[in-house]
């Protein structure tokens, strides 16, 4: 591989424009000290052009390799740093928990919306199942298993089966009794009774 081609690839990598082949080429050549020096020079040149902060001759890769090579088994640290590290860990896990909580909460909301979507989807699908036209002899109550047959209440075991219809009814009726805006709450309450 020619030196020039490699330098071009290096330049491309630096500008974040390298394709996979070039990146591979550069990585393969990176064990070579000369390549690393070229890379460092390019970095300096770019830093100067961009007037960036410059840390010349900072060969981290070599330094890290060296450090790893003569790394001893870490001695047990004294309590002080560990305690602060522990605190940090607690803080971090709290943050994670909060973030997770927020995420969960949002997911809940999304799930709720999906529920609404599913419901609308069901609503759209239902007429197709019933056929193109609802015949006069068609009895809607015949296949309804309860007040919530078309809702999502089906499959809820026991306790909720007994309570939720009552709760929904009481809520709707109480709202209807208040009767602030038009006949809407009444219609909602009535719609719960249509078996």
């Amino acid at each position: 591989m020619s030196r020039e081609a490699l330098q071009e690839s290096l330049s491309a990598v630096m500008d974040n424009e390298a394709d996979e082949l070039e990146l591979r080429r550069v990585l393969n050549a990176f064990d070579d000290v000369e390549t690393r020096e070229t890379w460092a020079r390019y970095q300096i040149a770019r830093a100067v052009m961009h007037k960036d902060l410059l840390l010349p001759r900072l060969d981290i890769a070599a330094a890290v390799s060296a450090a790893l090579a003569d790394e001893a088994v870490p001695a047990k640290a004294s309590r002080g740093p560990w305690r602060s590290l522990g605190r940090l860990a607690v803080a971090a896990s709290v943050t994670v928990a909060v973030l997770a909580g927020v995420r969960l909460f949002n997911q809940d909301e999304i799930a709720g919306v999906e529920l609404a979507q599913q419901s609308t989807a069901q609503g759209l699908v239902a007429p197709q199942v019933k056929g193109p036209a609802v015949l006069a002899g068609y009895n809607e109550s015949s296949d309804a298993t309860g007040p919530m047959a078309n809702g999502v209440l089906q499959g809820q075991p026991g306790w909720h089966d007994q309570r939720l219809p009552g709760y929904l009814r009481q809520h709707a009726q109480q709202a209807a009794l208040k009767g602030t805006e038009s006949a809407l709450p009444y219609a909602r309450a009535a719609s719960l009774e249509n078996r």
Partner: protein
Amino acid sequence: MRSIPLLTLLLAGWFVVPAHADEAQDWLTRLGQAEQQQSFHGTFVYERNGSFSTHNIWHSVQDGKVRERLLQLDGSAQEVVRIDGHTQCVSGTLIAGLGDAPSSAARALDPQKLKNWYDLAVIGKSRVAGRSAVIISLTPRDQHRYGFELHLDKETGLPLKSLLVNEKGQLLERFQFTQLNTTDMPADRDLQPGDDCKAIALDSDKASAAKVAQAWHSDWLPPGFELTSSTARKDPQTKIQVNSLMFDDGLARFSVFLEPLNGAAVIDTRVQLGPTVAVSRRLNTPQGEMMVTVVGEIPAGTAERIALSMRNESAASSKQ
């Protein structure tokens, strides 16, 4: 000098926007008045997921007395008769013997208050039931309530159509007149309750209802929602006392039901029925495990948060 036209433009914009909001507010005020002043009768449809029904309404205002009768036209003949906002009788399965707390007289729509929680705007014109209408949108300012789209009759301010829309713009329910007559007074016989219309029984124990309101509070409520009533009633079947609290923000409502579990093994649950969500969460109290159920026309996430925020304050309450 170039700044002058720009300034005028800015100023014009400044004046136009509130004017728009004010117009919507005026329409809502008209809506509130219309139901107190306008006699009408007509037919409307109500549609939500899994349900479509048609109803007749007769509404008469005479000497300041508002009489109203509603009758479902398909399926069972659900009926309600109201005088001055107080329910006289209900029919069929609508009867459930609920507590009508003394303070629960109808509250008028308050646009000033609604403005805090919804963006009010006139967004266009439409035609409903053969009448011209103006469309008012109530867009929630936070994620804790749904949006409304109201089509108000240009002539009278009556609501001809009302849509409930979630944050994704999906339609949750539709209320819409198909025919409306505002010129003729409804006949007296149309306002008479049918034979099946039974007077409602007020079986809520008022003293314990007041105690419920004191004993329970919520650590968190969506902004703008206030307690409007509380009831304490014994379930006729289970003989267990169920307490409930109702909250509203002037438009949207939710109820919180509190029932002791008495050792029953119950899982938390959530269901959605058209616009209404029901969320149940267990809660440990000094009296044992309770089930907190939030039911209302609010987003599920909000209902969930409310359910998790209910707290029992006095250990002596609900010990019955």
